Every structure is written in structure tokens, then in C-alpha cells.
């Protein structure tokens, strides 16, 4: 198997497992506390603060952000791997996709 395939598979699997664990913990916390979590916690700083306090909504939000970050990280890994293997056209294509995703993140998370 190509080295880049191994790296991509590892990133995707790790992202899925970490986000599932965060979602499971957050949902358990929400059920145990009985509080509503209908509105999201916005901004990375607020999520980190909430996580440190053990806030259920922040934990669920962190799980969702990890899940959304996983494909972005996968593109980042491919940029590095294509540069390493000197496949310039694909490195440039991956950089363009990463740039587009960065624009989307900027629109969304700010």
C-alpha cells in the first residue's frame, strides 16, 4: 500500500473514533444532567472553556467539530504526502482544495 493511503486511512479512522467518543460522552452528560442542549456553543474558545467545565453541549460541539475537521485534515495530509512524493500537479490540486475548505471554515466558524 502507498504511504499516502496509510496516512489518509489513519487520519480518517482516528477522527471518526475521537468524534464518536466525544459525542457519546457529551450525550451521556446531557442525559444525566437533564438539561437542554438545543443551542450550540459558538467559537473555539467557548467550546474549549466549556469542555474544561465538563459542559455537555460543548463536548457534543467538540465532537461535531472534530468530525468536520477530519476531512480537512485528510486533505492537509495529502498536500504533505504529494509534496513528499514530488507529484506537483496533485500537490497543487490538494492546496487548492485546502484553500477552498479554509474559505468555508472562515465563513462558518469565523
Amino acid at each position, binding site marked *: 500500500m502507498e504511504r499516502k493511503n496509510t496516512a489518509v486511512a489513519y487520519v480518517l479512522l482516528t477522527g471518526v473514533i475521537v468524534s464518536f467518543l466525544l459525542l457519546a460522552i457529551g450525550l451521556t452528560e446531557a442525559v444525566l444532567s437533564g438539561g437542554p*442542549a438545543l443551542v450550540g456553543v459558538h467559537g473555539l474558545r467557548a467550546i474549549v472553556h466549556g469542555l474544561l467545565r465538563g459542559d455537555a453541549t460543548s463536548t457534543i460541539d467538540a465532537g461535531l467539530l472534530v468530525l468536520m475537521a477530519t476531512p480537512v485534515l485528510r486533505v492537509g495530509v495529502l498536500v504533505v504526502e504529494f509534496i513528499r512524493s514530488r507529484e506537483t500537479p496533485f500537490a497543487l490540486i490538494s492546496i487548492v482544495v485546502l484553500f477552498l475548505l479554509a474559505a468555508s471554515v472562515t465563513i462558518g466558524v469565523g
Partner: protein
Amino acid sequence: MTIAHVMILALSGFAAGMVGALFGLGGGILIIPILVLLLKVPMHNAIATSLICVIATSSAAASRNVSTGTANVRLGMTLEVCTVVGAMLGGLLAGILHARTLMTLFGAAMLLMVVPMARGVDAEEGTGGELIPAGGEPEPERGFSRKLDGEYFDGASGSFVRYSVRRLPVAFGISSLAGVLSGLLGVGGGILKVPVLVTYCGIPMKAAAATSNFMIGVTAVASAFVFYGRGDVLPFLTGATAAGVFLGSRSGTSLSGRLQSGRLRKAFAMIMVITAAQMLWKAWRG
């Protein structure tokens, strides 16, 4: 929040994830009707939830497909330029369209997807396209598209399958359209891409399905951030549904070899027709 709320959402996600994995779908086409028609979730929140669930199913399945080499990483990255631009446009467009318009578009798209669904988009129903057997000589110079040629090991035949990618502009066109649909309606778009990649671009079914699956996570995330920024992603709703989808898609994958049949597929196509009619009815009645 009670355990009953979590269970209802997680079970809905589980059902959508399992059926999606059984029929080779991202799951969005099932999650949205469940959320909108059964659980009365507003359309924009349902689309946002569906996009996150598509990321979950895609990432889980892609990690397997990339390991086995079935997904063509170079082709997937190249087409992602089109799907991501399309998805961002679709996501922005969804923000200005009324929920009833989105419901109408979703119902219509669902009806259009019934035919490829009934025929099958999974890897078990033939290879399609032109295959170059392992050991065969590749075509002479074809410019950039030659760099996209792929090879994977086919467990069923016990041999390597090598293939060439043809008509790249067609692949770009269908990827852009699939991206817009994904961002606008919260679906993966694989049901649209896979038949075209097989029929017009010469990519074997297994490679086309795996490459499409590899792409839809990145496509969905491009518009998911747009929905997230608008506050359409509700953490409890999305978190519980996504957790169910994780588990459902894993169960569906392990069941798919034993349960899949043409009759089951046609029965599901019928359910899609009925669901699409209900979505259109709800859009019309408001």
C-alpha cells in the same frame, strides 16, 4: 434532555446509517425525510444534520477503501475541486431559499434518484466501463488523465484490476452538479456521480463507488461549515443522530453481503417514491 430523546434520534440515525450502508448510499437521502416527516425538524436543520452524518459515514468507509486501494486518491482529489466549489455554492444558496422550496427540490431529486437506486450503484452488480486486466499495457499518452489511472485488488476475481480514466470533462461536470446538490439538499451525491463515472469515464464500479465515497466527506464539509456558521447545526439533534449513524453504517456494512438482493433494492426504491411524494405534499401544503 431525556434518554428517550437521545434514543429516538440515535435509532433514526442507526436506521438511516444501516440502510444507507446496505444500498451504498451516504445516508442523507434517508435522514432528511426521517427528521422532517417523522420528527418535525425544520428543513434547514435537517439538511445540516444530514451533512454531518454524510461526513461520518464517508470518513468511516473511506478509511477502509483507501487502505485497500479501491478508492482512487488522485482522481478523488482532482474531482474534489469541482465538488467543493459546487457544495459551497449549494450551501450559500440553501441559506436564501425557503424551506418549502428546499423540500420541493429534495422530493424531486429523490424521485430522480429512484431509477439508479433500483438498478443498483453498489460494487456487486458488475464492473461497467472498460477494464484493462492486470499485466495489460496502458494506453499511449493521454496527458493529465493518464496520471489518474488506477489499480486495485478485486477480491471476488482474485486478481488486480487496472483501469484508465476517460472523458475527464464529463467527470468534472457531474462532480460539480453533485457538489451543488450536496450543499443544497444535504445528500452525498454518490448516487448521481457513480453511474456517470462508470458509464462515461470507464471506471470500474467498485473503484467508482469507493472514490465517490472518499470524496463526499470533503464535499459535505465544505457546505457543513456554511450551515454551522448560520447556526443550523443543533448539537443535540446532530450529535445523537450522527452517533446512531456511526453504529448503523457499521452494522449495515457487515450485513450487506448477506441481505442485499434485487428485490430488497426495488422495495426500497418504492419506499423512496412514497417518501418523495410525502415531501412534495408537505412542501405544497406548507
